């Protein structure tokens, strides 16, 4: 077929042709489960989050954080809905991120050659935690105000490099200049996360085996992703409209008051498992150690797991990963309603189990199963 006998547009703009052949090239494996769509769903949700955040940022005023959120909810046309999208969108994204982390642990996809992909997902998770925390602080409620004050004073009490980072990030003691600064970080990091997502998809694509007799992206995986997307949207809609403030401390919906310390300075659910680990160790340095240690163990996972890379996960491993997930949920619930004696004891126990799992149980059982 000569160039000129092609349809007019294809002869002059061949990009469409190559796009079509890429979309339909039968190189993808058959039978990928629905949960394999999670990274794409997270990306889509983050784009949506960026758009709703853009609208909110037009009306948000960090000098008057709480009142401007009230203004958005009450006086901006459909501001309450956009705010709800942004708030519940966070819950949905963290739900999907926690689920995909659980899936990686369950399937052991962090083993060779998946280490870099695993590091990228962890970096994405940590960045999301930071963005999520900043968003929570921007609400400027009675609880998040105090959370920020504690965080800033904690950062300043550290000597050396960590303290220096605190100064650089928060720009001085908690005051009028802090929230405008954090609003900028919230937005910049929210854009930066798309760079990490790009790396994620590049790594995933490089690792995916190319099939000789596979299926094409379109229509096979596009239809699957669409179905997954609609179910995701359905859960999202149920939460937005019928459980709009799921997992939040209700006290945070009152205005910030520098003279009144709320009973429990507890963050939204997606930060609980991290913040509660911090409470299990005494002192600011202990909290920093606990949080850094908790995340560092996840980075060390490819080496803590002693099993052979290609071996499918055994029953014991799956059971332990399941127990770890239950432990994480219970750890989040333990101090959800503020400090209590029982809550403190349980927090210590569940935190101890988390470290015990990674440092002792996991290397031991995987070494046993490998034999």
């Amino acid at each position, binding site marked *: 077929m000569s160039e000129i006998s092609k349809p007019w547009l294809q002869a002059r703009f061949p990009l469409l042709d190559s796009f079509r052949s890429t979309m339909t090239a039968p190189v993808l494996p058959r039978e990928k489960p629905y949960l394999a769509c999670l990274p794409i769903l997270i990306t889509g949700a983050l784009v949506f989050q960026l758009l709703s955040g853009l609208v909110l940022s037009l009306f948000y005023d960090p000098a008057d954080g709480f009142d401007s959120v009230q*203004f958005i909810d009450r006086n901006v046309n459909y501001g309450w809905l956009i705010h*709800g999208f942004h708030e519940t969108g966070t819950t949905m994204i963290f739900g999907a991120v926690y689920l995909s982390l659980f899936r990686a642990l369950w399937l052991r996809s962090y083993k060779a050659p998946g280490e870099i992909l695993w590091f990228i997902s962890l970096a994405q998770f940590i960045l999301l935690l930071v963005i999520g925390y900043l968003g929570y602080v921007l609400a400027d409620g009675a609880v998040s105000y105090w959370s920020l004050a504690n965080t800033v004073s904690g950062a300043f009490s550290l000597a050396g490099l960590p303290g220096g980072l605190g100064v650089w990030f928060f720009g001085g003691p908690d005051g009028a200049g802090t929230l405008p600064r954090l609003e900028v970080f919230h937005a910049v990091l929210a854009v930066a996360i798309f760079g990490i997502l790009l790396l994620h998809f590049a790594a995933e694509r490089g690792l995916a085996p190319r099939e000789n007799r596979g299926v094409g992206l379109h229509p096979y995986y596009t239809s699957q992703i669409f179905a997954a997307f*609609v179910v995701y949207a*359905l859960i999202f809609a149920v939460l937005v409209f019928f459980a709009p403030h799921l997992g939040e401390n209700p006290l945070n*919906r009152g205005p910030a008051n520098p003279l009144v310390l709320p009973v429990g300075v507890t963050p939204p659910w997606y930060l609980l498992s991290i913040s509660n680990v911090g409470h299990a160790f005494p002192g600011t340095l202990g909290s920093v150690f606990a949080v850094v240690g908790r995340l560092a163990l996840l980075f060390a996972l490819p080496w803590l797991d002693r099993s052979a890379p290609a071996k499918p996960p055994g029953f014991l491993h799956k059971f332990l990963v399941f127990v770890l997930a239950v432990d994480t949920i219970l750890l989040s619930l333990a101090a959800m309603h503020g400090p209590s004696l029982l809550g403190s004891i349980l927090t210590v126990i569940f935190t101890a189990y988390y470290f015990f799992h990674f440092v002792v149980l996991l290397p031991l059982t995987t070494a046993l199963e490998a034999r």
Partner: protein
Amino acid sequence: MRRLFLAGLVLACLAAPRVQAEDALNPPRWQSEGVFGTYDKAALQRGFLVYQTVCAACHSANALHYRDLDGIGFSTEQIAALAAGVKLSSGPATLDDGFKNPYPDPAAAAAAFGGAIPPDLSTIVAARPGGTRYVYNLLTSYAAAPGDLALLPGHYYNTAFPGQQIAMPPPLKDNQVAYADGVSASTAQEASDVAAFLTWASAPNLDVEKEIGLRAVLFLVFLSFIAIATKRKIWRETV
């Protein structure tokens, strides 16, 4: 058997609202409660009357404007008349004025109440665990202090308040307001109505939210059936 069960279920659903309408005070209930809850505008208007006569004497509600009251079923003329009756420092209030703050600044409020500033009521129901029910319980749980308890000066015993000692004097008593719709203004009725009004003040968009939500969820349920069926049909052709 199943049909009988279904018929019973439908009957139960039909009967449920009727029971609710008979007596919403024993035990206290609000129409806005539950997944499909909506506001009872009559209760909101009664609650606004209690708010305006009693609460507004000491509490601010800075996030609310008089124009917002069309959300509880008042007409623009009614709101304009209501607002005109409120004297601000700049003259009578208009539709676009915020609810009158009874104190010029927090220091004045603190001085008037021995340091306990009456909290802003715009988001009080959202910002308290238990929400509507907490406000109702707080307003109806004043009691005589037990003999062995020495109250702080200027405080009152209230079993619903954390710590049991509250600086707010018992605000409601029987027939403190006269309801236009003839409902008898017992303390419990006033507390229930004002709790309903404050629930609306915290979440004025609840009705629209439920309406849009129901449409969105129904649409997405159908769409997800179609999407999953399409996916299965496409994948069936691979082999």
